[in-house]
């Protein structure tokens, strides 16, 4: 509307943050994303979904990564014309447990939330493990 032209130049913002692997990492990630979204005009529902999915993926890296406890978690996020992309990387070997270790049944809600709410998402294992997702909405 009556935004300054400089606002239009700011169509792409990004963030890259090393999180200490610990209980506080999800809260720090949520706060960082809140900062990135600040005044970007993302719809409230998009912002809430973004905070939730980011928190889930960071929690998973804290809880499930089989990487060393002292290896940090890398949080990358970018907003490009209303499309948000978040990637969370840990030092673990990936998702797949040895088939004979079947003490855990079914999955939880974290990845299910990604599947339901993200416009796209994925998991990559390349040395470490990266989980990413994209959300799109109005800027």
């Amino acid at each position, binding site marked *: 509307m009556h935004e300054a032209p400089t606002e239009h130049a700011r169509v792409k913002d990004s963030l890259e943050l090393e999180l200490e692997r610990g*209980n*506080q990492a*999800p*809260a*720090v990630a*949520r*706060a*960082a994303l809140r*900062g990135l979204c600040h005044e970007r005009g993302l719809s*409230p*529902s998009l*912002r*809430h*979904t973004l*905070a*939730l999915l980011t*928190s*889930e993926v960071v*929690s998973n890296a*804290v*809880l499930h990564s089989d990487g060393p406890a002292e290896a940090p978690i890398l949080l990358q996020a970018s907003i490009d014309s209303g499309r948000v992309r978040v990637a969370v990387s840990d030092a673990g070997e990936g998702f797949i447990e040895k088939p004979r270790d079947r003490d855990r049944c079914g999955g*939880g*809600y*974290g990845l*299910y*939330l990604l599947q*339901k*709410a993200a416009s796209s998402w994925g998991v990559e294992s390349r040395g470490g493990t990266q989980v990413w997702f994209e959300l799109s909405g109005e800027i």
Partner: protein
Amino acid sequence: MVRATQFEIECDFQEQTGRLAASGELDMVSAPVLEKQALELLERGASELIIDLRGLTFVDSSGLRLFIALNQRATADDWKLALIRPPEPALTVFRITRAEENLPFVDHPRTP
């Protein structure tokens, strides 16, 4: 920008009714705290548990899992659970999973 999960609980027990009021962010750090308080009230013999979520700014899948578990317990052990509906941001996880339809959300605190 180091920041911890912000979370507080108020607790009250009167006439078999346990009341918890949670505020802040409900995540993997704070959900176990809320769970502990809820189980304590049940051990003290609460036949009704009212959890006021109006002060919550965020709920993740740990919170969702906790409420689903409490709800199953309530059915199994025959006590009553009521969740006072949180504001929009904290409803997101219940909306996406459609748990909103299955959990005992109520809109207003029922005062005795």
